[in-house]
């Protein structure tokens, strides 16, 4: 079983851990491990995924409590030694609370949970997450969140823009009021990505919506090279 070795962290309250495992193990055939939030051994993993869900019930703030889980210390070490980190929806919220990515995700401007398919445009093709997407392509990806409005202070926004850390934008406009229509950002190295849309929900040939397939292919391609 060649391919990229995935680790998916499971917090009490995570919902999309098995969904991501279905794509990485079931569809892509890559070795995949579900990691309980109390574990600290992330050795031997190429990509660690923080899946969607309501970690710790999203009490106080989404991801506020998850960031103190034992696994998060090892996650920072994994990133420091060049490992890839992917935060999807609740995972993105946890990465911002943990300070691995700037800004914060707050309540949707329309005050309602939104589950829909929305337009997303890829801002950069030169990343391990997006190399399989044709230049400037607009795709349709599922979103499902109540607190997905990205917000940050003007200096941070300028930094994100100047350093090309904005990877995905809602197109034509953000359904949740995110600043600068931001849907997904990465850290300066490009190895830590947080996004609100669910690429794992658009990667199955048997289900409607496949614009997420190139996202996962990009990851495989970046490790194969």
């Amino acid at each position: 079983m060649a391919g990229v070795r995935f680790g998916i962290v499971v917090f009490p309250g995570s919902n999309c851990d098995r969904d991501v495992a279905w794509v990485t193990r079931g569809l892509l055939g890559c070795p995949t491990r579900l990691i309980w939030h109390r574990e600290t051994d992330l050795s031997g993993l190429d990509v660690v995924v923080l899946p969607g869900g309501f970690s710790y019930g999203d009490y106080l703030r989404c991801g506020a409590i998850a960031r103190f889980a034992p696994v998060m210390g090892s996650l920072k070490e994994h990133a420091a030694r060049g490992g890839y980190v992917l935060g999807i929806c609740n995972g993105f919220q946890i990465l911002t609370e943990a300070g691995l990515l700037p800004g914060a995700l707050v309540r949707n401007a329309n005050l309602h949970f939104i589950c829909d398919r929305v337009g997303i445009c890829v801002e950069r093709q030169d990343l391990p997450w997006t190399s399989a997407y044709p230049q400037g392509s607009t795709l349709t990806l599922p979103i499902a969140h109540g607190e997905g409005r990205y917000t940050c202070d003007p200096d941070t926004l300028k930094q994100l823009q100047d350093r090309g850390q904005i990877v995905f934008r809602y197109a034509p406009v953000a359904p949740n009021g995110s600043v600068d229509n931001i849907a997904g950002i990465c850290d300066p190295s490009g190895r830590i990505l947080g996004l609100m849309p669910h690429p794992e929900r658009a990667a199955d040939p048997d289900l409607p919506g496949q614009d997420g397939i190139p996202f996962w292919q990009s990851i495989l391609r970046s490790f194969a090279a």
Partner: protein
Amino acid sequence: MYTLEDLKAHGLSLDEYQKIQQQLGRDPNPTELAMFGVMWSEHCCYKNSRPLLKNFPTTGERVVVGPGENAGVVDLGEGDWLAFKIESHNHPSAVEPFQGAATGVGGILRDILTMGARPIALLNSLRFGPLTDPRNRRLMARVVEGIAHYGNCVGVPTVGGEVAVDPCYTGNPLVNVMTLGLLETPTVVKSAAQGVGNPVLYVGSTTGRDGIRGASFASAVRVSETESLLGEHCQQDLPAVQVGDPFLGKCLIEACLEAFATGAVVAAQDMGAAGLTCSTSEMAAKGGVGIRLDLDGVPARESGLQAWEYLLSESQERMLLVAQKGHEAELIEIFQRWGLQARVVGEVLAEPVVEVWHQGSRVVEVPARALAEETPVYVRPVLQEPPTYVQEAWQWDPATLPPCNCRGIQLGQEIREWEQVLLQLLASPTLASKAWIYRQYDHQVQNNTVLWPGQGDAAVIRIRSQKFGSGEVPALRPSRKAVAATLDGNGRWVYLDPYEGAKAAVAEAARNLSCVGADPLAVTDNLNFGNPENPVVYWQLALACQGIGDACRALGTPVTGGNVSLYNETLTPTGSQAIYPTPVIGMVGLVPDLQLICGQGWQQAGDLVYLLGSQAPVSLGGSEYLAVIHQKVTGRPAPVDLELEKQVQAACRHGIRQGWVRSAHDCSDGGLAVALAEACLSGSQGATLCLP
């Protein structure tokens, strides 16, 4: 020993009290009386409706578990067993819409979980008063938010259902929730306690005073009294409505499935209505054994709880398990790992009694069967003649409608073109798009949703095992098998003709499944009716049950269980008035290959449009057209020809499986015109048609 007032406070009549005295051979003490009060409520023992449910067909080659357990189970083949059931939370939602609806979702999820199944889909059927009234608007918004809150947080996709609006539901909304689950245990986890000496395990959340009298409150009390009852409760700081925690609900699902996988769980039951009392007595009675309970072991959230408060509390997210002796520590570790309470609170006895101890003294000793099975049953006389309102309605003659021609119909002074009539129908709340509602439900979590809400006449969910946990993920087999599900009811039609209306509800559910290409398998039903002591309501209930029974027999879809909610009434200036008799039919169907299904929208220009079963009799009786355009609720709807129904549905399914049919949609509320409009809207394409 007790005054009539005391008995009434417990929802018990004098002769019911005398029956208790006979079974105990003595007077019940106050704690025992409270237990009988909740266990003998309509909500728990169906004393008014049970006789009428007897004529439902409940067996079939695919039925693994029929009525009597926490949920029905059908066999989908290759070892895939589907548990499913429907439950209602009408009265709690009238008082506190958000928590009432949310705890309704939590409760039905646990009924499926307790069978050993992972919940894989949620559907809901909602009915409200007119949205011109701001209270109804707020009620609807909060109910939808409550369902979304619980379903989204617990990670089960809400994929289908229906929403209707009618003046008769003002003040008494209907909130029915259905859940599907895929069995993860080799055999069904039953609720019958077994094995004298086996420990009884309390798992889940802590116990508080919330929700006390939820069961009898749901049965015996009209909404206005509920407010006064609540008002009185308010002062005593005792909310009659339970508050749910979906985060604990999700942890309970994962922990229970892990516990069931060890094989050390002998029996399980959710603590729903009537909490510990109901689960303990039902598990003991079904197993023909007894249970000793020590309340000192129950983890309490508040101090100073009395015995009756422990026993009646309806705190949420709690389950009662019977474990194999010697394995309790292994099970307790699993629940504690998921952050849940888990304690041994008693053991199974040989003698079939429920024995409860509190602070060192025995406070309850009651035969289990007396509480859970030898409950009162009322067989009431059924009116021989339809009530006057029905007879008058059946006399209605369409010729009395205003004159009309091919251009339009005369309403008052002006001619309203048929295009305007259609637009007005499409704008009526019952028919209008519900996208703003299901957009708030996560309908894609679990990565198995084949048809999104609004795309087809039924929800379609892929059947794929998710039985793996922490550690290396095993190889995952792809699957082409899916299950379809739908929820259908029609209050107005059953009000005008209970027998035919109930038949029509079952027929429509089967039609919706056939329109996506699924073989109808089995039914779970939620009967929402008024006060059974009113002869007209009892007549409606009796005939509706006959209609459901006959239709399920004819269509080969046995009833595997369901729920009854009575005393649904709305307050009018002249007193209380029953809601429309509203049986809601939940039906599941098998999709052998999820590539061979279809939605309701037109697919390609040039395709031909066929009307199947055009020879069926038509009538405007009870139609949305009469209600919305002419503000009339009258006429006799056309009787349902079940044989023709079976032929039409079989032809439709066959066409879909051969790849000849690219989309299919059933004619229901609003009739043919609305069905065609919906097919256009769904497919974003037009159509030109000429009727035969």
